[in-house]
C-alpha cells in the first residue's frame, strides 16, 4: 500500500501565498486527495470535488451552519442569527420574507434604474482619462450602490459610507477581530436611522426591522442585527469580485467584448464566466454527527470547508474544466452555492453585473490591462484581483 501525502495538510484559505496558486493547489488535491485535513486555523477538513461539495451542501442536518460558516465559532463573533448561520426549521422562516425582495422581477423593477444611473456616473468620472482602475472606480462602488439601493439608504450620502464599511467586512477572519467595529457601527446606524424615521417601507430593511412574518416569533435582536449585516458581508465583496474577474477576462480574451454586447450574454455566458472565476472560494459547515464523506470519517464537531471554486473546476464533472467554453452544454455551477443556503442575492448580483457591463461596453471599447501590471489576488473567502488598472478607447 502506498501512502499518499496529504496535499491539503497545510492548506490555508487565508494565506496570501495561496491566492495566486488556488487552482493549482486544489486541482492537485482533486486528483490525489480530494478531501483532506489541514492544520490551519485550528484544523478543518477541505472538500474539493463537485460531488462531495454537493453532498455537504444538500445535507444541512449532518453539516450545519449555526456553528459558523467561516473559520470562527460565531459565538466568538458575539452576534449570531443571520440567515446564513441558521439551520432548519428556523432558516426557512428567516429566509422567506427576505427572499421576496430579491426575485429577479423585484430587483430589476426596484433597483435597476439607480444602478444604471450610478454606472453612468462612475464612467463619467474617468472616461476623459483614457484609463481607470476597475475595482476602486467601478466594481466596488457599483456593488456598494446596488446594496445601498436594496437597503433603501439615502443613495448619495450612504453609498460611500456603505462602501467604506463594507471594505472592513472583507478583511480576513483568521486572526484579529472578526467583527470590525466600523462595520458594526455602520450596521447599528442603518438600523437606528430606519427605526427613527418611523416610516415602514416596502423594502427588505423594513421587512427585517418590523414588517416581516418570521414564523412563530419575531426576530431576536441578534437575528435582526445579523440579517442586516449579512446583506453587506455577503453581497458586497462577491459582486465586486465577479465584475472585476470578468473585466480581467475581457482584457485576456479576444472577441469577448463583442460577445458581452449582446444582452443575451447574461442567460448563459455569464454562468460560464462565474464557473471559471467563482468569486467565493470556500465556506464552512460543522458536522453534527460522525459521518463518512468521500472515504474519510468526519467527526461530530469537525469543521468542513467546501471549496466552490474548486468544485467548479472539477474535471470529472466539467469537460476541459480550466477552459472558458461558452458552448458547454452542461454547467450547473456552484458559484452561488447550492442547497438551502444558495445565495439569496443572486438576482441582485446578476442585475448589477448585467447593468454594469451594459453601461460600460456601451461607452468604451478595447479594454486592455495597463502595461506592466502584475495581478495580485485577494485572499480569503473571495477571490478576485485587488486592483485592475485598464486602458480603453471611447466609443
Amino acid at each position, binding site marked *: 500500500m502506498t501512502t499518499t501525502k496529504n496535499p491539503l495538510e497545510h492548506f490555508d484559505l487565508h494565506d496570501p501565498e495561496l491566492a495566486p496558486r488556488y487552482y493549482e493547489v486544489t486541482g492537485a488535491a482533486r486528483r490525489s486527495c480530494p478531501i483532506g485535513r489541514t492544520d490551519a486555523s485550528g484544523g478543518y477538513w477541505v472538500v474539493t470535488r463537485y460531488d462531495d461539495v454537493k453532498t455537504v451542501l444538500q445535507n444541512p442536518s449532518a453539516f450545519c451552519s449555526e456553528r459558523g460558516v467561516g473559520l470562527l465559532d460565531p459565538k466568538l463573533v458575539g452576534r449570531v442569527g443571520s440567515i446564513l448561520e441558521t439551520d432548519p426549521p428556523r432558516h426557512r422562516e428567516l429566509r422567506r420574507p427576505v*427572499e421576496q425582495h430579491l*426575485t*429577479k422581477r423585484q430587483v430589476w423593477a426596484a433597483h435597476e434604474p439607480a444602478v444604471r444611473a450610478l454606472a453612468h456616473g462612475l464612467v463619467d468620472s474617468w472616461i476623459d482619462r483614457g484609463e481607470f482602475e476597475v475595482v476602486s472606480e467601478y466594481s466596488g462602488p457599483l456593488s456598494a450602490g446596488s446594496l445601498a439601493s436594496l437597503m433603501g439608504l439615502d443613495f448619495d450620502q450612504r453609498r460611500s459610507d456603505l462602501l467604506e464599511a463594507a471594505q472592513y467586512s472583507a478583511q480576513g477572519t483568521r486572526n484579529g477581530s472578526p467583527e470590525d467595529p466600523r462595520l458594526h457601527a455602520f450596521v447599528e446606524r442603518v438600523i437606528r436611522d430606519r427605526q427613527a424615521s418611523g416610516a415602514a417601507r416596502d423594502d427588505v430593511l423594513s421587512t427585517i426591522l418590523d414588517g416581516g412574518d418570521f414564523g412563530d416569533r419575531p426576530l431576536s435582536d441578534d437575528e435582526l442585527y445579523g440579517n442586516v449585516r449579512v446583506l453587506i458581508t455577503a453581497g458586497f465583496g462577491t459582486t465586486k469580485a465577479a465584475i472585476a474577474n470578468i473585466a480581467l477576462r475581457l482584457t485576456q480574451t479576444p472577441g469577448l467584448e463583442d460577445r458581452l454586447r449582446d444582452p443575451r450574454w*447574461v442567460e448563459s455566458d455569464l454562468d460560464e464566466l462565474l464557473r471559471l472565476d467563482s468569486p467565493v472560494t470556500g465556506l464552512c459547515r460543522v458536522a453534527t454527527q460522525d459521518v463518512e464523506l468521500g472515504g474519510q470519517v468526519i467527526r461530530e464537531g469537525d469543521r468542513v470547508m467546501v471549496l466552490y471554486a474548486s468544485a467548479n473546476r472539477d474535471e470529472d464533472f466539467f469537460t476541459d474544466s480550466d477552459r472558458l467554453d461558452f458552448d458547454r*452544454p452542461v454547467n*450547473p455551477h456552484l458559484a452561488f452555492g*447550492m442547497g438551502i443556503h*444558495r445565495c439569496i442575492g*443572486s438576482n441582485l448580483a446578476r442585475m448589477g453585473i448585467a447593468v454594469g457591463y451594459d453601461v460600460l461596453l456601451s461607452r468604451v471599447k478595447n479594454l486592455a490591462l495597463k502595461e506592466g501590471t502584475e495581478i495580485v489576488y485577494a485572499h480569503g473567502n473571495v477571490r478576485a484581483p485587488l486592483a485592475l488598472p485598464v486602458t480603453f478607447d471611447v466609443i
Partner: protein
Amino acid sequence: MRVTIDEERCQGHGRCVLLCPEVFDADEIGHGVVKEPSIGTDLVAAVGRAVQNCPERAITVEP
C-alpha cells in the same frame, strides 16, 4: 412530454427561467414553476438544457 419541478429540491437558482422562459417561470419568491407542463418536440432541447443546468437536479421530464 411532461415537465415537473420538485419544490423541495428547487432553491430558486433561476437557471431554468433564463434558459427556457417558454416553459419555466419564477414564483413570488423566485422559485421555479412550470407554466407549460406539457411540451412538444420543439421545446425538448431547451428543456433538456434547463434540466442539465439545474444545480439541484430539481427538474424532471417524463414521456
